[in-house]
């Protein structure tokens, strides 16, 4: 199942970030810091999805030969 | 080529002078408030600054039209690509013009307007008279809280202000967006439901709608059916006359 390996790594990373996000939001009292932290986390998650799941690099590298 | 440049410059200068003569005409509305003079000054300044730019383009295009024409389209012009100092000089001149206008009268004029810390208003901080303005479809109501009177389209039928007094309008709307505008004062502020906006003016001359229609409170933001009829006359009077008017309104 090696072809799916990247997908599972990203999935784990996304899950961890989501849970961290949830706990961070519950614990962080300062509104501004919470906002910034959540923005950072959401940006990271979006970047991971776009880079690996949506194959963003193929936009400039072209379609890879499978 | 030098000949063409000289010709264009001559036409440019002539057009500019002619334009400047037109601009000295009296084309601005009546001066009603302190800010009107400020506005007129800035307006004229910008007009005189814009005029040479405009006439430059007119002279250039117009001269080219007459001097460089050909009948058949067979001959071709010199292969100039503009890869020399000309574009850089042009960029420098236009950028410095833009930045000049941006700073003066733009940002400096803005700073003057916003000197009043209480919000959008400008002018002197203190106000001799407060008028609460309420816009609704399709008329205005003016409340003078200190005097305890209210005028609207039924009662009083005009906005009366004392001359040489700083007036702060506190503008509200009960339904849709309106805009409170008195052309003689060159001032305008939107009436937004749910927030109060401010406009500070200091009338410097007496006048009334009957004498000059620039003395009117006009809605300037499209507000539906009778938007064009959302007008109330404005009358600027001497202090004593204002007091008399207040008493008269109270008596009613």
């Amino acid at each position, binding site marked *: 199942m090696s072809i799916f390996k990247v997908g599972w790594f990203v999935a784990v990373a996304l899950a961890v970030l989501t849970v961290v996000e949830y706990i961070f939001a519950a614990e962080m009292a300062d509104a501004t810091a919470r906002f910034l932290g959540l923005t950072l986390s959401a940006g990271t998650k979006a970047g991971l999805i776009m880079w690996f799941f949506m194959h963003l690099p193929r936009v400039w590298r072209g379609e890879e030969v499978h | 080529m030098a000949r*063409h440049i000289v010709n264009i410059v001559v036409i440019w200068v002539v057009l500019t002078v002619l334009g400047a003569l037109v601009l000295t005409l009296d*084309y*601005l*509305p009546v001066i009603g408030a302190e800010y009107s003079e400020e*506005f007129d000054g800035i*307006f004229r300044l*910008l007009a005189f600054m*814009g005029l040479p730019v405009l006439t430059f*383009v*007119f002279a250039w*295009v117009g001269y080219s*039209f007459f001097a*460089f*024409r050909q009948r*058949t*389209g067979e001959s*071709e*012009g*010199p*292969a*100039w*690509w*503009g890869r020399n100092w*000309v*574009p850089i000089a*042009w*960029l420098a001149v*236009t950028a410095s013009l*833009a*930045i000049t*206008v*941006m700073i003066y009268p*733009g*940002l400096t*004029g*803005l700073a*003057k307007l*916003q000197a009043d810390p209480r*919000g959008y208003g400008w002018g002197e901080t203190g106000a001799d008279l407060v008028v609460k303005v309420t816009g609704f479809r399709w008329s205005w109501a003016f409340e003078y809280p200190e005097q305890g009177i209210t005028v609207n389209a039924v009662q009083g039928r005009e906005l009366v202000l004392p001359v040489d007094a700083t007036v702060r309008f506190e503008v509200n709307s009960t339904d*849709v967006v309106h805009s409170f505008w008195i*052309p003689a004062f*060159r*001032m*305008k502020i939107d009436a*937004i439901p*749910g*927030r109060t906006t401010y406009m500070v003016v200091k009338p410097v001359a007496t006048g009334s709608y009957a004498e*000059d229609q*620039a003395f*009117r409170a*006009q*809605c*300037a*933001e*499209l*507000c*539906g059916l009778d*938007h*064009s*009829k959302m007008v109330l006359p404005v009358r600027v009077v001497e202090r004593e006359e204002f007091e008399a008017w207040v008493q008269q309104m109270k008596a009613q």
Partner: protein
Amino acid sequence: MYALISIASGVASGLIGFYVGVGLTALVRVAFGHSPWDAQISITVGYIFGLVGWLMGIGMWGAWGREWFGLPTYARKAPGWQRYFVFNSDHKVIGIQYLVTFVVVFLLAGLLAMVMRAELAQAGNQFLSNDQYNAVMGLHGILMIAVAVAAVIGGIGNYAVPLMIGAQDMAFPRLNALTYWLNPPVALLLLLTPALGGLETGWTAYPPLSVLTENAQLLFNLAIITFGLTSILGGLNFIATIIFLRAPGMTWGRLPIFVWSMFVASWLALLFTQGFAAALLMVLLDRAFGMSFFNAEAGGDPLLYQHVFWFYSHPAVYIMVVPGFGLALELITHFSRKPLFAYKYAVGGLLGILGLSGLVWAHHMFTSGMPNYLHGPFLALTEAISIPTGLIFLSALGTLFMGRLWLKTPMLFAMAVIFNFALGGVTGIFLADVPTDIHLHDTYFVVAHFHYTIVGGEIFALFGAIYYYFPKMTGRMYNETLGKLHFWWMFLGFNVTFFLMHWPGILGMNRRIADYPSSLEGVNLIISIAAFALGASFLVFVYNMVVSWVRGPVAEANPWRARTLEWQTSSPPPIENFPAPPVVRGHPYEYGVPGAVHAIVPTPMPGGAPAGGAK
């Protein structure tokens, strides 16, 4: 027959879709215990189903939809003029469809302007009641906005861009057909608005008024959201086409300036048009579901709309005028028989406009009561946009100087663009400057200003381009004398009308009013008379176009001796444009360079030696 079948099946399946949508809404509403009919929701759902039905019926089902179910596709093949009435993916057909449609819309909206000027010739209400005036004014506004957004991009752009870059078609031909066929429902909805109470809010649709007003507003919102979709999909298509389908050798540095301007305008459309859609969607949600985006009492804010709306609608004026600049420069260089002066700076100017246009929207809101700290930055950025715009002027003026001006009708229109836009640009300074804008905002000064920029800058370029491409599109030549008559008539009528309009604005005549203070009567009468003259000039245009299309003299492949690629193929071009791609060897504007060649076109065309007409 083909045309009739195509339109009839489109209308029929559109109607079926509408009633299916209304019926489904009724079922769901009854199931949840509501009355079956709610105007806002039923019409919206019905419209969405009807729109899909219309598209499928007009031919999208056969050409595209079947593919989604794994079925083989087919296209309706229609001969001759009938190809303009089917789902046709040829960019040349679509370009002409767009152009004819929007010229008709332009003339209609112009008639509405005549009605307005008739009413405004005197103070007081003569012909129209206040609500009729508002309806006419709103419809004039939105139809003209639609013309300005779509006529040059959809018409001239679709027709010329693939030809100019040596491509066979657009990157997504079927998407291109879709964007055109989304337009008829838009036109239908807008023209139906008077039946449902008329537009009360003008084309800007400011809430809370647009939430409270008649159901005509609902049609407006649905129409404009659809229209925004055509704009976005069209922009997307142009970007992909220009990036990927350039002929070999057509580097970015050799791209004709009109293609550059289309590239910039497409990015603007792609990025910002969602703002209009979002703003109108919020109004729709407030209307249909009682949401509170703009209801201050429930925590909403009317200014939210103005920010979102102008976030689109200021860049929109660049969507309109940037292709106008491109066309003006393109025509000026060909008809001056001189290379485009400072080509790279002109491209830089276009890109500079692209960069700044998204950062200036709040200059429409200087009197709106927005926070104080926003005024300064928006003032400065708005003034700064005059710097890239100035580069367009540099290029135009530099090209004219010492040129060999061949003053054909298209050239006259192109020079008029520079002339008009100079005035429109200078008056823009007054409006960008907060101290003057406070008085001038929402007056006829603004009306004059934006007519000078949009009509003077874009519509003049549009007409220049129509004359320029007329021989290419139809294979026939227009009547030059009538063309010049049209130009001078329109130019004079336009300038008298709109130059005078500044003055009542300064004196305190606000815009969008059916009635004005009696002291402004004299100048308004003159403006009205000039406006009627301006309107009459289009009779010459229509006569010239119709008669020349039917029986004008046959045009040569390259009547203008232009060097760009679209003129190196026959007039009108074959379906595949070029049998094989041209090979681009040099700059498209190398006039006055002995032996210069722009491109080599593979098949010998009648009268077509190597492109660029080397002699």
